[in-house]
C-alpha cells in the first residue's frame, strides 16, 4: 500500500544534505578540540599529543581571573533570571487567558529578538552614566545585564512545563483545604522543579557564552573567558585558546546533558 503522508526524509538528497549540515556544524569544533591537545605552537598543524596547552592556560593569571569572573556572573545571573522567570511563568499561565497576553510574552522574550549589539550599546550608555553617578564598578552590572538576557531561556522551559501540568492536581489540593501557599509549596513547585533546574542550566550556559554585551559593559579587571579569548585575536593565536574553548565546550555539554535528562518525558 502506498504511503499517504508526506515525509521530508523521502526527498531526494535528504541524507546528503543532512550529513553536510552536521559536518558544517560539528567538524570545526572537532578540529578545535583535537588541536587543543597539540604539542606544537600552531593551532592548525598537528605535532603530537600533549596536555601542555591546558597547563599553559591554567598557569595564566588572566585566564584564572576570567574563569572566576565567568563562573560568578553565570551563577548569579542564572539564579536571578530563573527566580524571575519562574514568577513570570506562573503569572502568565496559572490564570485565565487575559488581554495582552501575547504582548507580555513578546516583552519577556525581547532579548531573543532584539539584536544583541543594540542592547549592548544601550547598556553601555546607561551603565556608564550609573557608574559615574554612584562610583560603583563591581560585577553587579554584568550580573544584572546577564540575568536580563537569560530570562527567556529560563522562562521558556518553565512555561512549557506549566502548560503541560494537570491543573486538576492543584484543584484537588485546594478542595482538601490546602492554603494557596501549601498548594504551591507541596504540589506545584515539586512538579515544576525539573523545569526550573533545566531553565537555570540554560540560563547559566547562555551567560557563560556571552561576548558582545560583556565586552561593552565590563569594568576594569572584569574580563570573562569569552572576552579574554576575543582579546587574543590580534596577536598570534596559540593552542591555549583551543584549550580554553574545549574546557568551555565541555562544561556547556555537561550542563546541556543535565538539561536534557531533566526535561525528557519519564514515560
Amino acid at each position, binding site marked *: 500500500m502506498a504511503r499517504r503522508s508526506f515525509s521530508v526524509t523521502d526527498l531526494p538528497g535528504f541524507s546528503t544534505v543532512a550529513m553536510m549540515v552536521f559536518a558544517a556544524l560539528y567538524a570545526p569544533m572537532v578540529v578545535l578540540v583535537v588541536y587543543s591537545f597539540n604539542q606544537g*605552537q*600552531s593551532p*592548525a*598543524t598537528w605535532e603530537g599529543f600533549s596536555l601542555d596547552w591546558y597547563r599553559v592556560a591554567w598557569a*595564566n*593569571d*588572566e585566564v584564572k581571573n576570567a574563569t*572566576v*569572573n565567568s563562573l*560568578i556572573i553565570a551563577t548569579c545571573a542564572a539564579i536571578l533570571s530563573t527566580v524571575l522567570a519562574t514568577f513570570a511563568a506562573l503569572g502568565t499561565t496559572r490564570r485565565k487567558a487575559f488581554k495582552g497576553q501575547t504582548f507580555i510574552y513578546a516583552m519577556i522574550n525581547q532579548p531573543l529578538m532584539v539584536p544583541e549589539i543594540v542592547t549592548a550599546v544601550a547598556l*553601555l*550608555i546607561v*551603565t*556608564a*552614566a*550609573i*557608574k*559615574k553617578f*554612584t*562610583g*560603583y*564598578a*563591581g*560585577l*553587579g552590572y554584568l550580573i544584572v545585564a546577564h540575568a536580563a538576557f537569560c530570562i527567556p531561556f529560563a522562562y521558556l522551559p518553565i512555561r512549557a512545563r506549566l502548560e503541560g501540568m494537570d491543573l486538576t492536581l492543584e484543584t484537588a489540593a485546594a478542595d482538601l483545604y490546602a492554603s494557596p501557599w501549601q498548594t504551591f509549596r507541596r504540589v506545584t513547585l515539586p512538579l515544576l522543579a525539573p523545569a526550573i533546574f533545566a531553565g537555570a542550566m540554560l540560563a547559566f550556559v547562555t551567560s557563560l557564552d556571552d561576548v558582545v554585551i560583556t*565586552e*561593552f559593559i*565590563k*569594568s*576594569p*579587571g*572584569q*574580563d570573562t573567558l569569552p*572576552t*579574554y579569548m*576575543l*582579546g*587574543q*585575536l*590580534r*596577536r*598570534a593565536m596559540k593552542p591555549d585558546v583551543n584549550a580554553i574553548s574545549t574546557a568551555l565546550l565541555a562544561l556547556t555539554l555537561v550542563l546541556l546533558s543535565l538539561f536534557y535528562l531533566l526535561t525528557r518525558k519519564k514515560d
Partner: protein
Amino acid sequence: MKRTLTLVAMLMAGTAAHADGELHLYNWGNYTSPDLVKKFEEKYKVKVTITDFDSNNTALAKVEAGGSGFDLVVPSAGFVKIFAEKGLIQELDLSKLPNHKNIDPAWMNVEWDPGRKWSVPWQWGSTGVSVNTKDYSGDINTSAIFMDPPPELVGKLNVVPEMGDVLALATMYEGGKICDDDPAVMKKVRDALIAAKPKWMAMDYSTVEKMTKHDYSATVDWNGSTLRQRLAVPEIHYGYPKEGYPLWMDNVVLLKDAPNAENAYLFMDYIMEPENAAMLSAFARYANGIAGSEPFMPDDMKGAPELYPPAEFKDKGHFLTVCTGKALEYQTAIWTELQK
C-alpha cells in the same frame, strides 16, 4: 557610601588582595608582560588589573561612554589624536616622568604627538617581506618581491590578506603615498596587483607555520612574525621595501577621568626604564621605542634585523592611517577585485 560600594565591588570581584592602590590598564589582549606587572606591583604595592580590548574602535567607544574606570589605554598611532581631539585624555605632566628622556629620538617627534606630550611608546613594528634566501638570493628590500616577483619566487609566494598593509605597500611601490586618492596612481596600483596575483600561491595569515615548513618561499609579513620564522629557519630574512613600507605603533595614554592618575604616572615612567621596556618586548616580541633597552633584551632579540631597521631604510617607513573618502573607496574596490 562610595567606600562601602567599592568594598562590595571588591568582594564581588573576588579580589581579597590588599593593596595600597590600584591601577587599571586597558590594553590589547596577550600584550602585557605578566612578569613586568608583578615587578611593578611589588615595587609600588599597587594592584594592577589588565582588561582586554580587541580593536581601537571598541576601546574608543567604551572610553567615550564615560565612567569606564580605566587609567591607561594603549591605542594605535592614529587613534591617539582621536582620543585627544575628543578630550578623553590629558596632557602629560612631564615633570612626573623622569624617564621621558629615554624615548628614542626617532619616536619623540611623531606625527600624532610631536614632543610626546600626550602619549608614551609601548611597542612598534613594521610590515615588509619575509624571504627564504635558499630560494632567492637577490635584493629582498623591495616590494617587487610580491608586486613583480622574480622567476624563482613565482608560484611560491604568499600575501597576507590585510587590506591596509598590502595596499600601502603596493601604492608606495607605484610611487603613491599611504591613502592616496589620485585616481591615476590607484589605477596603476590596481593594474599592477591584478597582474601580479596569478604569480602568488596564496593569500593567507598563517605565515609562521608555512614559511618554516617551506610551503612558501616568500610572503608579505609583519616583522615580529618573520623574527619567529628566522629563529626556526636561519635562511629566512626580513626585507624593508625601499619604495616605502607601513609602520604601526601602540602608545600609552592617560585618561582624563583616570581614578588613579598618580599610579598611572608611576607605571608610564616605569615602562620607559630601558630594563622594563625590554621586558615588554621580551613578552610581545616587538621593539619598544626606548633608547638603551637593547642590552636588556633576550638574546634572540638583541640586534635582531627585524626589530632594528638598517639606517638606509629607516626613513622609508610610514605610519599606517585609517583611510577615508575616495582613498578608501579605491582601496575597497581594488581589494574586492583582488579577492575574486
